[in-house]
């Protein structure tokens, strides 16, 4: 009873007394009506989007805390940006405690939805799609939380991004679960972030399924503590269509899970199959850089309890064909470049090391060889599960 009272009091304090629902329907002047509703919303409000197609001519943005934008479903309410004249994304969120749910963003000129410096953000049952399918001129990221603390991306769909479908960058305390990412260059990417659980997702038909990267010359560095588990990462063989210059343009086509220069990553319990280059790749950052604060190596990667199907039958990196021939038609499903530290592999499959000794060394100097994995299966769970504030979990119940 006391507990109930306390909860009730907490609710009163956090939720403003006059919270209201503002409904915006598709139709003429959708841009102005919807943008105005987002600007005039007050903390606690729900902006309810009617079913149908909204034709937007500019980017939209939300900068009010504690607002929910809710549609009639990810196939019922569509925000279409084919006629967009300005802005770098379809929807930009810069406020805290925001819930986005049950609507779609289609064909935005830049990114789909970007939330920057937006703590406690929830994306639930959101679809972001470039409807023409893979194309170099599609926007970079479909769902793009960055520089945020407490991020939940749940039951969303991302299709056609020319970089990553679900990209969480420079953030802390992240859960990405129950999503579908397909026909993106990278299905799901966690980059320069601390503390992420990526689970129960389906990454299929991307160039690379799930990436965990840490890059130099970025304000937030030292990416660490990421768990990738219980995902289905299958048939990621879409030819890389990222514009050159971007780091993902270097992801080899046919990649399942890729870990690059990161601290403490656990990859376990995933179903990995039909990825032409490999199911799992663990490498250093290869490009020239002079960032004194940057660690280019993967350190502390634990791979275990994954279920491996066919892989490595079409290795898309220089010398891949020769290796494939040497291995009799398919290279091992797990590949590491050899530069990492504390790499523990418990999966019962062959592991190929490229035998490099330092980050940035060219593949021409590789000395590929099979390496011994763990002598017997092990449990590599060392990282604690990510927990989010209860209000965020409640928002998706």
């Amino acid at each position: 009873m006391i507990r109930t009272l306390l909860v009730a009091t907490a609710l009163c304090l956090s939720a403003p007394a006059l919270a209201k629902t503002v409904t915006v329907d598709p139709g003429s002047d959708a841009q102005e009506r919807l943008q105005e509703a987002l600007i005039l919303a007050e903390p606690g409000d729900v902006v309810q989007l009617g079913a149908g197609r909204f034709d937007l001519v500019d980017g939209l943005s939300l900068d009010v805390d504690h607002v929910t934008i809710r549609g009639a479903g990810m196939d019922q309410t569509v925000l279409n940006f084919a006629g967009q004249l300005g802005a770098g994304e379809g929807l930009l969120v810069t406020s805290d405690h925001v819930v986005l749910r049950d609507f779609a963003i289609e064909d935005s000129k830049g990114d789909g939805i970007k939330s920057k410096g937006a703590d406690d953000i929830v994306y639930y049952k959101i679809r972001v799609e470039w409807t023409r399918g893979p194309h170099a001129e599609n926007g970079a990221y479909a769902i793009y939380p960055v520089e945020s603390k407490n991020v939940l991306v749940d039951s969303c769909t991302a299709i056609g991004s020319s970089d990553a479908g679900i990209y969480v960058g420079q953030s802390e305390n992240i859960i990405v679960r129950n999503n579908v990412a397909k026909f993106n260059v990278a299905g799901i990417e966690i980059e320069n972030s601390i503390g992420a659980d990526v689970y129960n997702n389906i990454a299929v038909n991307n160039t690379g399924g799930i990436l965990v990267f840490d890059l130099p010359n970025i304000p937030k560095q030292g990416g660490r503590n990421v768990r990738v588990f219980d995902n289905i990462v299958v048939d990621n063989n879409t030819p890389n269509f990222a514009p050159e210059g971007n780091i993902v343009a270097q992801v080899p086509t046919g990649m399942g899970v890729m870990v690059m220069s990161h601290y403490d990553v656990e990859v376990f319990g995933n179903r990995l199959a039909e990825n032409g280059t490999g199911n799992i790749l663990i490498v250093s950052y290869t490009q020239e850089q002079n960032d004194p604060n940057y660690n280019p190596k993967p350190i502390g990667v634990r791979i275990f309890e994954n279920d491996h199907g066919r892989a490595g039958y079409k290795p898309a990196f220089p010398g891949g064909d020769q290796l494939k021939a040497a291995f009799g038609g398919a290279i091992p499903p797990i590949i590491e470049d050899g530069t990492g530290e504390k790499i523990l592999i418990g999966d019962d499959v062959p592991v190929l090391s490229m035998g490099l000794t330092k980050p940035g060394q060219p593949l021409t100097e590789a000395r590929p060889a099979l390496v011994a994995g763990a002598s017997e299966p092990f449990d590599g769970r060392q990282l604690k599960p990510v927990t989010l504030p209860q209000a965020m979990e409640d928002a998706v119940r």
Partner: protein
Amino acid sequence: MRLLLSVCAVLGLAFSAGARAPEQVADAVILSDGLPRLLSDYHFFRDASGWQPNERVTPYRLNMPLFSDYAEKYRFLYVPEGEQAKAGGDGLLDLPVGSALIKSFGYEMDGKVRLLETRVLLHRADGWLALPYVWNEAQTEAVLKVAGARIPVTFTDPSGKQRSIDYGVPNKNQCKECHALSGEVTPIGPKARNLTRDGQLAEFARLGLIDREPAVDYRVPLWGEASAPLNDRARGYLDVNCAHCHNINGSASNSGLFLTYEESMPVRIGVNKRPVAAGRGSGTHAFDIAPGDPDGSIMIYRLNSLEPGISMPEVGRTVVHAEGVALLREWIAEMVKKN
């Protein structure tokens, strides 16, 4: 209780407005917590058409202005009576609560300038607020447009070329996108280093708008000041046009590309810096600035683009600033090429 308070506030506002001579700037409107519907509510101007600044509304010019689709811009500073801004160093004037910055945008049409919008930046007790007001056809009233607007205009650019564009009035959030520092709205323009022209700072001090004339160490060159060092002109251009987002506390902080006048690390201003989240904005190039190779530099590619998702800045530009691009091309071309 809340209702009562706001009723009191409204009454108070009405009293104070009534008590003051109508021609004075309406301090209570600046300081209120509402969104005034009309530009004329503030009494920043004596005339309905927004040309004659009221008492204590002081026009000023910047050494290097932000490029805004070749619009003519008219800037005014208001500091309430009995208050003073604090000046110190090369940076922003520290404007007291109750101050306002007013900026009108227009184009010359048929021999005279027609105003499209006036943006106000109000320093309220809880921080700065940015609001856009759009002028009517008759040029007699400007009305708040929190959601922004697109206005078709035709004008002649400095090269004599006639252009027709959908001029973009930013919405309230877009105002903040550029004006945000660590998530809070802040002025951008009135930095001492960008106000040194025409003895303005001395004049501000003489009028008592600022507490003293600041000693500026490293001024921004005037736009078109050919005798200024190329590096200063280019860095000044980047500071004014890009650095409000591209700084460590700005809207583009995640890019790691920091274009402030003070930045000294080459990789941070883009030299041999790889993009972070540029997507197709990379234009297939590897570096923001490839020394000696403007055509291979992402910065030039994005400044030359009009495509949303590629073009930079993301807000407030629908034509290419050919003269600005030429300046940066020259600057990058003269950088020593990496071997």
